[in-house]
């Protein structure tokens, strides 16, 4: 099984440690990982801003970079969602279809493709899970609170098997954090308010570390936590899963 590692542009530049944790984790799980070095971005920031047409070059490049792999795995639900749902702007060649079908968010890949939930990690902290919307409602990584389906959660399956980790329950299980890409600057006031409210929920429930499968939301929450000097850390779920004693 050949896996192409997709490191979203903002993780590449700003959070290399998340990329590193993802790569190491996948290797520990016995996966053969390749990193195509001419990758740029999935085009999501443009699509969400209304400039989908201008992102065609980026999307096409993505397909070029990843077409030869059995799976494409990335530590960011919203980017993977974009590949799966919005690459319909490209001509649907067999390559494009293959890339869209084989793109997986990291947790989903570990649980659904590798069939593992206990990967021997340990992390003795009180953790709050931020269920990012594009992963939750877009990729259906878990059941969402609006629907009346049976409960499931790919991320919880993984976190519940981490030694010492206490998963704290929140008052609002899956409310959006207000990041939303360019929303975070064009609707600055609401974005900030949403983020502050999310953080308060974690604070109220004794969370020490906020984690999630989409680092863009975590970047937004971290920005607020640091500015307001609040006693919570953020960590990508890959960093927690890659942590062993």
């Amino acid at each position: 099984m050949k896996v192409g590692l997709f490191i979203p542009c903002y993780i590449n530049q700003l959070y290399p440690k998340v990329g590193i944790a993802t790569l190491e984790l996948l290797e520990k799980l016995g996966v053969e990982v390749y990193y195509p070095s001419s990758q740029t971005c999935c085009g999501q920031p443009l699509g969400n801003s209304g400039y989908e047409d201008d992102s065609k070059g980026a999307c096409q490049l993505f397909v070029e970079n990843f077409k030869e792999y059995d799976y494409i795995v990335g530590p960011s639900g919203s980017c993977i969602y974009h590949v799966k749902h919005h690459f319909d702007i490209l001509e649907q060649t067999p390559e494009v279809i293959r890339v869209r079908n084989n793109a997986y968010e990291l947790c989903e890949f570990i649980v659904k493709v590798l069939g593992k939930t206990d990967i021997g990690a340990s992390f003795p902290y009180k953790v709050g899970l931020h269920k990012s919307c594009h992963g939750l409602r877009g990729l259906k990584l878990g059941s969402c609170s609006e629907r009346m389906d049976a409960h499931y959660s790919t991320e919880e399956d993984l976190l519940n098997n981490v030694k010492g980790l206490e998963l704290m329950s929140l008052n609002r299980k899956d409310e959006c954090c207000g990041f939303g890409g360019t929303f975070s600057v064009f609707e600055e006031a609401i974005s900030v308010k949403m983020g502050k409210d999310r953080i308060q929920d974690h604070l109220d429930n004794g969370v020490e570390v906020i984690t999630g499968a989409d680092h863009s939301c975590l970047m937004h929450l971290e920005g607020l936590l640091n500015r307001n000097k609040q006693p919570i850390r953020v960590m990508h779920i890959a960093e927690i899963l890659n942590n062993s004693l």
Partner: protein
Amino acid sequence: MSHSEKATIFNKNEAKVNWHDKALWYVREKRDNAAHKIKGWEELRNVASGIKANVLSNLDNYLMEFEANAQKNGIKVHWASSAEEHNKIIYKILAEKGAKNIVKSKSMLTEECHLNPFLESKGLEVVDTDLGEYIVQIAQEPPSHIVLPAIHKTKEEVDELFQEHLGTKPSGGDPQYLTNEARKHLRNKFLQADAAITGVNFAVADTGGFVVCTNEGNADMGAHLAPVHIACMGIEKIIPKEAHLGIFLRLLARSATGQPITTYSSHFNTPAPGAEMHIVIVDNGRTEQLSREDFRSSLSCIRCGACMNTCPIYRRSGGHSYDATIPGPIGSILSPGKDLTKHSSLPFASTLCGSCSNVCPVKINIHEQLYKWRQLIVKDVKQPFVKKVILKTTGWLMARPKLFNLLGGSARFMLKHAPRFMVYSKLNAWGKERELPEVGKQNFNEWYKNRKKNE
């Protein structure tokens, strides 16, 4: 003013934002509990959405079937292609009857058509009899929510309003007292009414009858007391069969307020002896929306308001920030179809979190339609020059890995070495209340290259 500007103003009072958010979240949770209590909720949504899709594909036939059956029952049917026509038709009916005092129960359509100011300009008195509607009417404001029109007002604010308009005693916002006073006042209006105007929740093609849902019974009170009843409906309010009401009424009440059934689901089929019943069927831009492949399902909406209650942006920006008759997520996909330029900021007033689409009882893919509107808006509505150039250039760069990485590197360099006052300037909306990520020595690319070298 754009949505974000209005939302910024609303957010100046954080305590009020918190209150507004909690009030609506409470309704959302009530809805969750109610939906949990019946088996097959998701199946109900599937069926409802299927029926609505069928209606939209056969709208002409169902409307004509409805008209024929309604006429058989003695109801007079009128057709209006626009808001102006709708208003004129209603005025004509009222003028012929010499009606002066009109009671109205809640109808978003008459809001959309601006019926009240039109009738008032002709010298008629129109009183909104739904309590929430009544509050916004005397406050001279538009409703801020389609089910809870005065949700933006605290009970203390209502207290002051009633003191001014109804001469009530200060009560510190005692809901019982205030409601009673409003009821006393409205009772007289009902008794004096020459005509009653109501909306329509469902018009049933196979019977020619229609159903109006209220919690206060004010639609019935008006329609039964006045000699003339005029019901106004958009063309999309049709359902094929009476039997389908069992699906829609169950969904509507639970989605709207978390009640198992609306207190009054009133079925109107035929005028009382000696009374008149009219129906005005209105297009006003709906067929145009129907013609837009990507947006037609927005016409399935049954106006339950659940997408507003669940929307994290609506809850924190208030209904008035949308500056449209229908606010919130559904309004943000309907309004651009009416006036793309005026409403061009609305599809951007969302993180595309998708909560609305999952809560919607008729499964409208609201967040996907928001995304689609964005693509059209940047083409058809003039965009701020800088924003446009930045995004277009980014797109160009993203297709060129070498340049893209070079630029990413220099951006990182800037972020790391520029002085704080430059990074956190007025131009940086991110940094107003948030820190930027701390930048390290290497990006992932560089780390990976080094690692390969050392292997």
